């Protein structure tokens, strides 16, 4: 059965067809569509495949590990920076090993289309010493779900599936199985290796070291790693890079020896074969120079290896058919330049968005405190950093607004204000608020609650209807937990609350609450 699927959807359907029992995820571009596809699948719902959103990537990874312990196949999905959040669970899952197959989908975002860095998840797989699959096409994305689960169960290790934005968000026709494998039966592990006390952890770690040989063998035999072509120039094309290389070679009428790499660890003997056949090697990989560094180490300083490190390809940003063609020495066609009058059109708040009213009030208040700062967080409301508001001093990682405001206040900065969204607050803001409450830190935290995870398209927010309760339970004085409806008519009221709570020499929380205008429209349509 052929289907037109996004790369993300191809993984989702591949996992369902491979007998998935649960997907665990926190939304994050460009990974969100995987979980949404599974949530929308009628058969999966009927069969009780878990697909509800998790509070953050760490809870997701741990729940998946629990499902694996019980014998079943689980998929964890996140954007690349989510790997940082779940790193503790992820790295240790390699030491415990897994029972039911575990696929960890990390969607990297070279060029930072929707992200704050360009980190490459292949480092995480190498760091944790587990296999990684990197599809070059939507078809491989589909096929690798089943392949990855089998590999995971055979090696007893989690397997990382690395996507990049251009594959995650590109559609193509995919040949699917058209039928579903039966889910694994319940079969809890009774292996003591799950208890990572030092004495056991040392044994488990040796087991993990022992598995490296089998991982290497699997990479060498992998249907996804293959040598082809001819010529003096050797090319190592990783994941989606394979497409750009093929496009450029075909357009330029050129030939090259090529090693396609879509399964890691790097297949060392295939690299040795390429070296023997060629006089130089160009490494083409999307993201950071992971393979280039590894190949240089394998082949030694005397052998010429080109890529992002020597400037043959740009050091940052995603690959394109154009920069790959240039790296192959092919002539670029003449292009029509962009007329100088064309100006940037950055994203902006929707008309009628409640965040606008919060920033309008905050701007008026902070104008009176030129020494004060507003620490931002990650969500639609980060747009408050842009004109006309220019309200935010920082945006670093999920939850950092509260803790950075606290640290700045500890240093004597006044007033220190944090702006965080509802979903980001439950993702990673609650623990920081507990720190602030335990010291009654003199900061004002604005939890701008739009009842959803808006930036990624309006997914359920884990803490909806619980925010006042959470703040009070964490130790915020109930008299300083204030709510307000962010509407243009209420801007004076928001301003008054902000002034009162900034004047208060202790921890306060203001919760402007009104549904996201996008989800409100959708809900109105459904009715």
């Amino acid at each position, binding site marked *: 059965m052929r289907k037109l699927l996004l790369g993300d959807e191809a993984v989702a359907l591949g996992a369902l067809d491979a007998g998935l029992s649960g997907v665990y995820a926190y939304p994050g571009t460009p990974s969100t569509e995987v979980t949404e596809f599974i949530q929308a699948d009628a058969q999966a719902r009927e069969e009780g495949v878990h697909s509800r959103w998790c509070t953050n990537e760490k809870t997701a990874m741990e729940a998946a590990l629990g499902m694996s312990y019980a014998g079943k196949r689980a998929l964890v999905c996140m954007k690349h920076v989510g790997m940082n959040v779940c790193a503790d669970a992820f790295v240790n899952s390699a030491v415990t090993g897994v029972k039911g197959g575990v696929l960890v989908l990390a969607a990297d975002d070279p060029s930072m289309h929707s992200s704050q860095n360009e980190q490459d998840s292949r480092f995480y797989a190498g760091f944790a010493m587990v296999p990684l699959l990197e599809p070059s096409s939507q078809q491989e994305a589909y096929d690798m779900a089943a392949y990855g689960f089998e590999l995971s169960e055979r090696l007893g290790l989690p397997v990382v599936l690395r996507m990049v934005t251009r594959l995650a968000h590109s*559609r193509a026709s995919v040949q699917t199985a058209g039928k579903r494998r039966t889910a694994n039966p319940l079969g809890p592990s009774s292996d003591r290796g799950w208890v990572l006390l030092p004495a056991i952890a040392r044994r488990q770690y040796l087991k993990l070291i022992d598995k490296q040989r089998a991982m290497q063998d699997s990479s060498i035999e992998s249907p996804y790693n293959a040598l082809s072509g001819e010529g003096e120039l050797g090319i190592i094309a990783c994941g989606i890079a394979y497409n750009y290389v093929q496009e450029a070679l075909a357009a330029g009428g050129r030939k090259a020896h090529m090693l396609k790499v879509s399964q890691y660890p790097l297949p060392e003997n295939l690299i040795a074969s390429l070296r023997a056949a060629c006089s130089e090697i160009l490494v083409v990989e999307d993201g950071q120079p992971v393979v280039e560094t590894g190949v240089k180490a394998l082949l030694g300083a005397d052998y010429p290896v080109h890529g992002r490190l020597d400037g043959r390809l740009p050091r940052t940003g995603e690959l394109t058919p154009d920069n790959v063609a240039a790296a192959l020495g092919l002539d670029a066609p003449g292009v*029509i330049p962009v007329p100088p009058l064309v100006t940037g059109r950055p994203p902006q708040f929707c008309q009628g968005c409640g965040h606008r009213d919060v920033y309008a009030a905050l701007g008026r208040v902070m104008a009176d405190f030129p020494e004060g700062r507003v620490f931002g967080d990650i969500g639609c409301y980060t747009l408050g950093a842009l004109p006309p508001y220019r309200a935010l001093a920082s945006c670093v990682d999920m939850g950092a607004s509260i803790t950075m405001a606290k640290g700045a206040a500890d240093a004597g900065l006044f007033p220190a204000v944090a702006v965080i969204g509802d979903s980001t607050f439950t993702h990673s803001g609650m623990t920081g608020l507990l720190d602030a409450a335990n010291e009654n830190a003199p900061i004002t935290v604005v939890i701008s609650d739009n009842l959803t995870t808006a930036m990624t398209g309006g997914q359920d927010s884990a803490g909806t209807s619980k925010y006042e309760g959470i703040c009070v339970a964490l130790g915020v004085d109930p008299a300083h937990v204030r709510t307000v409806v962010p509407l243009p008519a209420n801007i004076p009221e928001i301003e008054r609350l902000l002034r009162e709570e900034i004047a208060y020499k202790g921890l306060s929380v203001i919760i402007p609450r009104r549904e996201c205008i996008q989800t409100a429209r959708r809900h109105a349509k459904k009715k």
Partner: protein
Amino acid sequence: MKKDIILCGVGGQGILSIATVIGEAATAAGLYLKQAEVHGMSQRGGDVQSHLRLSSEPIYSDLIPLGGADLIVSMEPMEALRYLPWLGAEGTVVTASKPLVNIPDYPEEAALHAELSKVPHLVCEDIDAMAAKAGNPRGANMALLGLAAPYIGILDRNALREAMKRVFTPKGEAVVAMNLKCYDLEQS
């Protein structure tokens, strides 16, 4: 035979719906297809584009090389200009004429149209007025697709029309009829 198309506009204008219709038609016609979309934050009123590649042969890259597009289809005139580096020497631009001004430093409209007049082949129409005339102001994107249909070439007009029916049928017969009316304007 192949056709590389850049679809562009401003987040919320309905670019992805155009892509979905062309994608459905291409799939039904048994063509190879790759369609790179923009999801995420830029959909909030920022510039958005989709690379749509249709071919009778397998396609490698999800992205169109610079200077390689046969056609730019744009919901907004300044956005059409933004992607000119992708347009081939004999390429065609099919664009809405009316600016969407949601930024303070939007260029002069006359200067914009002077730039547009320099492209090799240009179709520039007030699709909002067309859609309003058809009684469906929200169908401007389908009016644009109607204008672009003759230049897509690899798919005929009726194949796109049938695909549009299939795409919008889940939303009800009325939605199908309204969108078809906008799509057919070019021929009426």
